[in-house]
């Protein structure tokens, strides 16, 4: 089942959140051609961009693509329209967290949260903790490390101990950033837009500077 939101609502959210204009995409698919994970998901980056333009929530959030995106920035680098597509993928993840639309079968999504919690807790990200907590939650994750983990430990490749950062400073920054982010979100909701079209935060008329090889 696919539900549509009124066209423009999702694009507006994306545009407000990351100052990118999804409507600049004209489906050349250079993003998809260079994407290292496109072949491993149901959707590919150009399809995600179209779905954002059309407000197709479920098409995006029922697929695992955004959680497989490695943030390699190839799409952003090659987009002839100068759209920061990798940032739009991040914004879609942020919307998914905020609106309870995180894919239930995407271990990478859970891993991002474990990672976030780890650096918030210790001031630094503790790699061994991520693997251990993921293994407790997901036995398949533990199986993957049975062979490689001990080899890395024996070689001294992994240092299992942690040196904390300035945890007080970290907690203070996280608290301020989270509350300020919520406040900005409420401000946006309190200022409804007319017409339902996404705000065009940049480049709605002028074409972006050529990044080389885009237009010839």
């Amino acid at each position, binding site marked *: 089942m696919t539900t549509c939101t009124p066209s423009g609502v999702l694009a507006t959210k994306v545009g407000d*959140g*990351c*100052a990118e204009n999804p409507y600049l995409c004209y489906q050349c698919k250079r993003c998809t051609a260079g994407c*290292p*994970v496109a072949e*491993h998901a149901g959707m590919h980056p150009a399809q995600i961009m179209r779905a954002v333009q059309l407000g197709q929530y479920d098409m995006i959030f029922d697929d695992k693509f955004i959680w*497989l995106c*490695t*943030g*390699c*920035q*190839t799409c*952003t*680098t090659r987009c002839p329209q100068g759209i*920061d597509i*990798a940032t739009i993928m*991040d*914004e879609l*993840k*942020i919307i998914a967290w905020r609106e309870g639309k995180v894919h239930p079968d995407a*271990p*990478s999504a859970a*891993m*991002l*949260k474990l*990672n*976030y919690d780890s*650096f918030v807790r210790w*001031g*630094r*990200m*503790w*790699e*061994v903790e991520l*693997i251990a907590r*993921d293994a407790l939650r997901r036995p398949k*994750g533990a199986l993957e490390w049975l*062979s*490689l983990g001990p*080899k*890395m430990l024996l*070689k*001294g*490749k*992994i*240092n299992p101990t*942690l040196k904390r*950062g*300035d945890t007080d*400073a*970290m907690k*203070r*920054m996280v608290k*301020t*950033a*989270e509350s*300020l*982010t919520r406040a*900005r979100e409420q401000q946006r909701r309190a200022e409804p837009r007319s017409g339902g079209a996404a705000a065009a935060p940049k480049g709605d008329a002028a074409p972006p500077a050529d*990044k080389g090889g885009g237009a010839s």
Partner: protein
Amino acid sequence: MTSIAYYPGCSLHGTSGEFDASFRATARALDLELVEIPGWECCGNTAAHSINRLLATALPVNELAKVEKDLKLDAVAVPCAACFSRFKTGAHEVARDPAVADDVRSVVGRGYDGGVTVQNLVDVYHDAVGLEALAAKVKRPFRGLKVACYYGCLLTRPPEVTLAEDPEYPTHMDAVVEALGCTAVDWNYKTDCCGASLALTEQDIVDSLVARIVNDARACGAEAIAVACPLCQVNLDGRQTEIARKDSAWVGVPVLFLSQLVGRAIGLDDKTIGVSKHLIDARAVMA
């Protein structure tokens, strides 16, 4: 001796101690004083920019403010490519958008005036030290060891942020290894993604990406792969052992940090630069 701030990042204290050790040792030998940022925090890595955009910008800017206001230095070495990307992105965001800069100032508690140059591992050897000064320090040159320089994603992309001259086919790392007596091979996967943190959750995808990268390096004649990112190293090295476990015909290619190659060439001993820490044995190519 030039002083430069140093931000090691979490991976250099976790899975890549030999990256930290070899970087520090080479800097010392190349007359570069590294001043570690006191009480540094995680840069927020992939998780922060997928969860809270403001925090993702504020965390690296907080470190840059420490370098600028507390250490009063004008450059910071960030050898981890992922941290480097977050530092460059943070600085870029506050410089281009005053509203973002205001919110970041609220989170950090003070402003950052943009006075710090962020250098990745390649920049340190190529620009801060310089190719001539580096070549002059070489005591044990490699005798033409064929090296594939793997830049991965974030040293060069996106170019608006990194200001990389040639984001699709960079050559600065190639110039550094040539200064050490290596032969840099031309190959196709210099800037392709290794799968990054998917190695924790989607190993099959990472294995297919790593196999493609290593197969091309080998086919182009490389005897070793040089990297400048802890995650690239652990993926290319570690996943090769997993690929080899399933494919007995797999011929491993050793994966070394650029700092280890520099260290070997300027005469540091194997133990200092951690040559034996890798799963694909690198001792033969470093002998």
